[in-house]
C-alpha cells in the first residue's frame, strides 16, 4: 500500500475507531453498576472497558489528525484506482480465497456433512487457483484430477482423523 493509499485508509479507519470508541464509552457508562449487590463502585464492570474506550478514542483522534495532515481526506473517493485494482489478478485471487473460504466455514460446514463440504471447498480452491495462473498453468484435466485427489484426501482423511482418533463429533 503506497503512502497516499495508506493515509486514505488511515482516515477511514480513524473514523471507524472513533465510532467504536464512542460506542464502547457509552456502553460502559450505561452498563449495570451492580448497586443492588452493594459492590465497591470502583469495581463496577464498566470501569476498565470505559478507560479502554477513552484510550481508543485518543488514539483514533490522533490517527485522524495525522491522516488529515497527510491529505488522506482529499483523495476521496478511491475511484479509478479502486476499479483498476478490483479488476486485477491480486483482487481476483483475494476474492476467490476470501469468498470461498468464508462460504465454506460459515455456510457449508454445519449445513452439509463435513466430508462433503470439505471436498467441495478443496476442489473449488485448487481448480480455481490453477485456472487463474498466468504462467505454468497445468492442463484442465490435470487440474481436475489433482483437485479431486486432494479433495478426497482432505475430506475423508481429516474427517477420519478427527472423528476416529480425536473422537470429535463432526459438524
Amino acid at each position, binding site marked *: 500500500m503506497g503512502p497516499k493509499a495508506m493515509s486514505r485508509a488511515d482516515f477511514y479507519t480513524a473514523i471507524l475507531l472513533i465510532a467504536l470508541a464512542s460506542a464502547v464509552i457509552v456502553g460502559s457508562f450505561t452498563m449495570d453498576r451492580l448497586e443492588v449487590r452493594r459492590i465497591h*463502585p470502583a*469495581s463496577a464492570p464498566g470501569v476498565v472497558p470505559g*478507560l479502554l474506550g477513552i484510550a481508543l478514542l485518543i488514539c483514533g483522534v490522533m490517527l485522524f489528525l495525522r491522516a488529515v495532515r497527510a491529505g488522506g481526506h482529499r483523495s476521496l473517493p478511491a475511484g479509478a484506482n479502486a476499479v483498476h485494482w478490483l479488476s486485477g489478478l491480486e483482487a481476483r485471487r483475494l476474492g476467490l480465497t476470501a469468498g470461498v473460504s468464508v462460504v465454506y466455514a460459515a455456510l457449508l460446514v454445519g449445513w452439509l456433512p463435513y466430508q462433503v463440504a470439505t471436498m467441495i471447498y478443496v476442489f473449488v480452491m485448487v481448480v480455481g487457483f490453477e485456472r487463474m495462473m498466468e504462467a505454468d498453468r497445468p492442463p484442465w484435466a490435470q487440474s481436475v484430477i489433482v483437485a479431486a485427489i486432494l479433495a478426497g484426501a482432505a475430506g475423508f482423511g481429516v474427517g477420519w482423523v478427527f472423528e476416529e482418533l480425536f473422537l470429535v463429533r463432526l459438524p
Partner: protein
Amino acid sequence: MPGLDFLDQLPALLAGGFAHVLTWESLLNVAWATLLGIAIGSMPGLTATMGVALLVTLTYRMGPDQAILVLICMYVGAIYGGSRSAILLNIPGTPASAATSLDGYPLARQGRAGYAMGLATSGSALGTLIGVACLAVVAPLLAELAFNFKTYEYFWLALFGIVISGTLTSADDPLKGYIAGILGLLAAMIGAEGLHGFYRFTFGEPALAGGIGLIPAMVGAFGFAEILTVMKRRLSAQVIGSVDRVLPKGRDLWRYRGTIGRSGVIGTAVGVIPGVGEDIGAWASYAAAKRTSRERDQFGKGSMEGMTAAETGNSAVVPGALIPLLTLAIPGSAPAAVLLGALFIHNVRPGPTIIVEDPQFIYEVVAMLVLATLAITVYGLSLTRLLVLVLRIPRERLMPLVYVLCVIGPFAITQRLFDVYVMVVFGIVGFVLREMKYPMAPLVLGLILGELLDKSLRRGLVLSDGDLSPFFTRPISLGLCLITVLTIVLTIPACKSALGRLFRRQPTGAGT
C-alpha cells in the same frame, strides 16, 4: 536479591527434568514434531504461530507432557525452518527469518547455499542453547521476584506488556501498535467478567458469555489472515539448489563465537520482553553484529557473520519467550501466546507459584528445548537436500488444506460452530489490519492480558478503597509505571529529540 539457593539444586532439577522427558514416546514425538515444524517454517506463508496454533488442536487429546513437548518442538523447528526459504528463495519462511535472507540469499547465489544452511543450523542450535541456559537460571529467580507482585504490580505489568509490544512490533508507527493492543484488550472484555460474573458486551448472545476463545482467535489472526495474505500474490521465486559442503567448519564457528554469544544473549533478552518475538530478536542481533563486525562492509552481500547473528538471535528468543510465560503467565512472543493457551487447555497453570508447586516443570521444559535443539541440528545437517523439496510444493494446493485445519481445529476443542465463526472474523479483521500495517502481536497479547489488567485494576482499587496512590508508590509498581510512561514518551518524536538534545549537551557541559 532473591535467593540463589536453587543453584545448589540445579543439577538435580536438570537431571530430574531430563529423566522425565527421556522416554521412547517422547523421542518419537520429538522426531516427527520437529520435522513437521521445520517443514512448516520452511514454507513461506506458514508461520510458527500458525503451526503451533494448528497443532494445539491436534494434540489436545494427548497427555499434558507430550502435548507440550510436541508444541515446543514445533515452535523450535518452525523458527529454525524459516531460514531454509530465506536462504534458498530470498523469501523468509517466517517473519523471524527476514534478517537471515539479507545475507543467506547472497551466499546461496554464490553457490554456498549448503554451507549457509549448515551455518544457520549451528547458529540456531547454539542460540537456543544459550537461551535454554538463561531459562534454567533466570526463570526461578524471576518467579521468586514475582512473589512480591501484588495486584497493583500485575496491572502495570499487563499494561507494560501491551505498550512495549505495541512499540517494538510497530517501530515505524507505534500508534498502530497501541491501537492493535487496545483492540485486543477490548475483545478480552467480551463475556463474563472475573470479579462479579457480569456479562459484558454479549448482546444477549449465550455463545459470547464465555468470551472470545484464544485458540480460535489466534488461528484466525495468524492462520486465515496469513492464508489471505499469501494467496493474494502469486509466488514465482526460483529455488536455488545446494550441492556444496553443509557441515560448518569449526574455525568459522570459533571465529564468530563472540557474535554467537552476543546474539544469543540479545535474542533471549528480547524473548523475555512480553509479546515482541523472534523477528525483533533477529534484527537486534543483526544490527549489533553489524556495528561491531570487522567485515561490516560485507553485511547484506553474503556475510556469514551477519547470517549467523540473525539465526542465533531469532532462535534464542524461543527459550527467552518461555521465561515470562512460565513465571508470570505472560507470553514473550506470539507462538508463546498460543503455547499459553495450550497450557491452560491441559490444566497447567504457569505463574510465580509454579516454582513452589512444580519446580521440576521448568526443567522439564528445559529438557524439551534441548531435545528439540538436537533434532534441528540432526535434521538441519543431514536432510538439507531433502528439505528443499518442501519448498517446491505449490501454495495453490497446500493452502486449501491448511485452511481445512484452521476450520476443524477450533471446532474440535469445544465442538461449537461459534468458534469457527470467531476464527473467520479474526482472520478477516486480522488481514485488513495487517494490510494497513497494524501488528498482530499486541492484538493477541491484549486478548491474553485483558483479564489480568481488568481484574488487577479493579481489585487494586477495591483494596485501596478507591485510592490510586498504591499504583504509584509501591517500588515495583512505580518502576513499571515509569518504564511504561517512558516507553510511550520516547515514541513521540518531539520528546525523543528533546531527550536526545539533553543527553548530547551533557558531555559538553561537563567539559567546560
